[in-house]
């Protein structure tokens, strides 16, 4: 009883002290001093890697990447002139390192002489978590959508066959384009069921395409998406057949 009274007295005392302080106008009661956010030196331009970024490709080599078909084997895409070009015979490639939540920057270019239509024109993709072989994972579509139409949930910036982009911000083939992506990986309970779904924000060439979009599962070519349990996973680039190029790829873990 005494304990209870003391507690009530104490709590009401504290809250009235807070109220009093606020009524009196003491802004100090809502100032927080720790933990202090770490200092990150930004790049010279928004495209340049900040000081805490892991550089996945800086134009020189594929040390951070590996083959998807043959785990552990080198990623046999072509590095020349500071860029990385898809070798369709080598298949998809993915990072050696695995990630959970992150901010990703990458740049890509559709060849100026691209041909074909619909999904057969400059097709590639970035898988934000490579959950298995081939095209397993969560794909943000890359396609030449400059005057080339296809199903809207499969155009550039779509969460493939799950979420239509808010705009078509494609540049012409031959021009470099940027993706800035915020990925929040899904979390799973110990029984494998979903605790929190995945979320993604996508900005293409400075234009917002996905705003904290909730994913309903992995992206599928056929059928309805569903989740299956996984942890930190690599980032994967798709060799769909067209010789797109990539450059300036960096990631910041969140």
């Amino acid at each position, binding site marked *: 009883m005494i304990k209870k009274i003391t507690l009530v007295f104490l709590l009401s005392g504290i809250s009235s002290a807070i109220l009093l302080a606020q009524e009196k106008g003491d802004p100090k009661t809502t100032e927080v001093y720790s933990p202090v956010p770490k200092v*990150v030196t*930004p790049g010279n331009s928004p495209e340049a890697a900040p000081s805490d970024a892991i550089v996945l490709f800086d134009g020189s080599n594929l040390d951070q990447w590996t083959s998807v078909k043959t785990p552990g084997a080198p990623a046999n895409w072509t590095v020349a002139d500071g860029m990385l070009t898809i070798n369709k015979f080598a298949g998809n490639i993915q990072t050696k390192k695995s990630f959970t939540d992150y901010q990703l*920057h990458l740049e890509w270019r559709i060849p100026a002489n691209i041909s074909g239509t619909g999904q057969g024109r400059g097709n590639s993709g970035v898988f934000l978590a490579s959950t298995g072989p081939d095209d397993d994972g969560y794909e943000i579509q890359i396609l030449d959508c400059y005057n080339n139409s296809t199903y809207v949930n499969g155009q550039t910036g779509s969460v493939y066959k799950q979420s239509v982009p*808010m705009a078509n911000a494609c540049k012409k083939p031959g021009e470099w384009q940027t993706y800035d992506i915020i990925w929040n990986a899904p979390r799973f309970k110990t029984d494998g069921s979903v605790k929190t779904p995945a979320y993604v*924000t996508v900005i293409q060439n*400075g*234009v*917002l395409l996905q705003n904290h979009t909730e994913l309903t599962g992995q992206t599928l070519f*056929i*059928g309805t998406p569903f989740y299956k349990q996984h942890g930190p996973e690599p980032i994967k680039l798709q060799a769909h057949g067209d010789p797109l190029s990539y450059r300036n790829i960096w990631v910041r873990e969140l």
Partner: protein
Amino acid sequence: MRKNLVLLLPTLVIASFCFAQTKPEETEYYTPVPPVVTPGADFLTPPSDAIILFDGKNLDEWVATKDTVSGKKWTVAGNMITVDKTAGDMQTRRRFMDFQLHIEYRIPENITGSGQGRGNSGIFLAALPWGAGGYELQVLDNYKNTTYVNGQVGSMYKQAVPLVNACRKPGEWQTFDVVWTAPRFNDHGILHSLARVTVFHNGVLVQNNTTLLGDTPNMGQPAYRVHGASPIKLQAHGDKSEPISYRNIWVRNL
């Protein structure tokens, strides 16, 4: 027998569902088609659908908050706006709901003062004529200048600490890229959904879909009060340090 048939029905439904999911066309959608937006040449250049709020020339898109008809506005010189602390806050003529905002600011190289008294300003993502005056994204010189962490640059003032401190030096131009989702209220003035904000500071993520608990007061707790589309407001802070400058401000309605 009849019972058996009824039991069979769900099985048939499931079977036909599975059957339907064998063709990729089943999950391809063709309408509505996302609008075509021509991106800027780089991250700083506005896309084709942006409303230009300041391009270096004039303050036609802005009014003084204190007197929106004939109040004194800030100074335009050298293709930038410099805060006039004697004129008070300045806000857009237009009102906005959800938007993507790009804005650049510069702390003068000769800045003096410390804590909150060093290059203090702010961007109110929705200006309100009461209480805290809206929802403030803090602007401050935190390059080797400490203050309470929920009041440093990139904070949603006194509500959300930035993920990192991505400040540039005084004298250098800095960027904010903001995705703002306004709060929604129902017909009875009851809060229906919280405001949400994503912020990149110099290309570095500092707020990731942060939900707000209300406006951003200096004293007391955040609170919501019903409002609709609102202006964007820049703060003339009363501290004694040298005034900061803004340039290249554009916004895209979402």
